[in-house]
């Protein structure tokens, strides 16, 4: 198992590089808006970096909503199969 753990993709050094690469790509997609005109349909969606902010914040909201709902709706895996409550 240990020899597989040293797979190049899982090394901390590689993961650091991936984060760097990913961050640069993210920065580039926003910076590109200086040169490419994003023609928004409703004005606001043409603002600088709108896609980035909107994408990030809507994901944040969805994850948090899921977290809160999960607090009420999550049950143990055998919820339906344990006991005599179900077929």
């Amino acid at each position, binding site marked *: 198992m240990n020899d597989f753990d040293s797979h190049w993709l899982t090394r901390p050094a590689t993961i650091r590089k991936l984060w760097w690469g990913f961050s640069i790509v993210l920065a580039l*997609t926003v910076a590109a*808006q200086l040169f*490419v005109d994003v023609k928004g349909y409703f004005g606001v969606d043409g603002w600088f970096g709108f896609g980035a902010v909107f994408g990030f914040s809507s994901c944040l909201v*969805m*994850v948090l909503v899921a977290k809160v709902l999960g607090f009420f*709706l*999550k049950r143990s895996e055998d919820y339906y199969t344990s006991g005599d409550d179900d077929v």
Partner: protein
Amino acid sequence: MFELLPPPLIMVAGAMLIGITRGHWRSVIVLGTPLLTLWAIWQIPDGVVATVDFLDYPIEPIEGSPLRRLFATIFSLMAFGGGLYSFRQARWYELSAAFIYAAGAIGVSFAGDLITFFLYWELMALFSTVVVWCGGTPEAGAAGVRYAIMHLLGGVILKVGIEGVAIHTGSVDVRPMLATNFDTWMILAGILINAAAPPVSAWLSDSYPESSPTGSVFLSAFTTKTAVLALILLFPGEPVLIGIGLFMVMYGIIYALLENDVRRILAYSIVNQVGFMVCAVGIGTEMALNGAAAHAFAHILYKALLFMSAGAVIYRTGFSKCTDLGGLFRTMPLTAACGIVGALAISGFPLTSGFTTKTMISQAAADESLVFVYFMLAAASAGVFLHAGIKFPWFVFFQKDSGLRPKDAPWNMAAAMVLLSVLCILLGVFPNLLYAYLPYPVDYVPYTAGKVLFYLQLLLFSGLAFFLLLPLMKRTRTVTLDFDWLWRVLLFRMARAIYAAVAALGMALKTRVGNGLVAIRVRAGILFGAELTQAGVFARTWSIGTTALWIVVLLTAYVLVYVL
């Protein structure tokens, strides 16, 4: 009667032959039947091909149109892809049932009247249940029963609507209508049950993940997408669909985020994707309907691809939970790569089929100035990347090292995955291949620099959100309650409570009321002489003398009363 072979019957014949052939012959049948069907589909001209009279109604088993051919094409392609994926692994009866199921979907596609439509609709319900049962576990058996109940109930509701429309309008033609009265509402409800619309969407995430690794590939393709076709044919521009669609979109994302079972994540994302299509049908413009049809076509390919990738993992490892999987990219690189292509396509990444089709729906919303709908769909696109685009490949193929070192997918599964991956990218790079076959002329350019940049920002920053919020998304060994809790638990408990109450009432009757009844019976016995040994008061034999005496007394009384 028919100048050409009806495509659904070819599939049914193929399904029969699967049962009686063996070995290579069966492989030939499995792979050849869908291709023959595909050929037959393209022989069907526009308009009604044949009419048969039944109970004074003209039955039109086959009616061609670009939209119908498009859906039938993807259904037969999917039967081929699914057949290729499973012909060496699945049992013959699963393949056979899956082919009749596909025949039902193709039959619905060409149904020119509501009666034919209903028959094929029910054929799908029956044989998809068999496919669920082919999961072979007790859980699959129970889920299959719940699935069957839901679909038969949906069928009854649909039938009520069809009867009503037939009687009140005198026509059973499949033609656009709006949900304005009881009949049309019933039809709409019956179709929406198959589209996994709220509040009954739970049948989908309940049953699909319980089927076999090969069965879920077939299940993912047909039922919900025939419902989308039915909505396009019967309810284009029905405003209520916009709200239902948006609900489905968000529901799918939230539940997929909470889920631990790999195929259940994908099942929730079917609801999410069908939500996009339902919403588009609700918008109802030519652009929107084109978008719904195109998205259904693309969705079937990438969702089947995702289910194939998940199925290969389950087939090789026997595990289906995120908490058990992880790190499989080491030994299943091809399955991982194909899964990632499917994940990118469902997320609508540029150069994949998701981008060229889903953005049409957003465009349609923008064209109609539906600001709220547009931004909800944009947020949902980000959410799709979150729950399916990254979550699925991340937890299955990367994440932690689970220690599992399975072999990569068998060659036929791999071939099917590569085929669908190629199609996903092909439709993304050359969207006109699909646009040419859409029901309305396409006036849409998917690739403009601004649009690509907007979606890249949207998606990549969703990716950032995923990795930053990863601690919040730690997988737990849980299930999430859904509306089906109402009938799986609440209704069950209520039934049990009512049963207990009735039993208690019975006992009370036996004791309290019973005692009273016994007392009355005893008294009656005394009066009427139920006992043979001693006659009752009114049943005794009296002597003549006593009778004469009573008559004298009564007559005296009468005379006295008369005189006085």
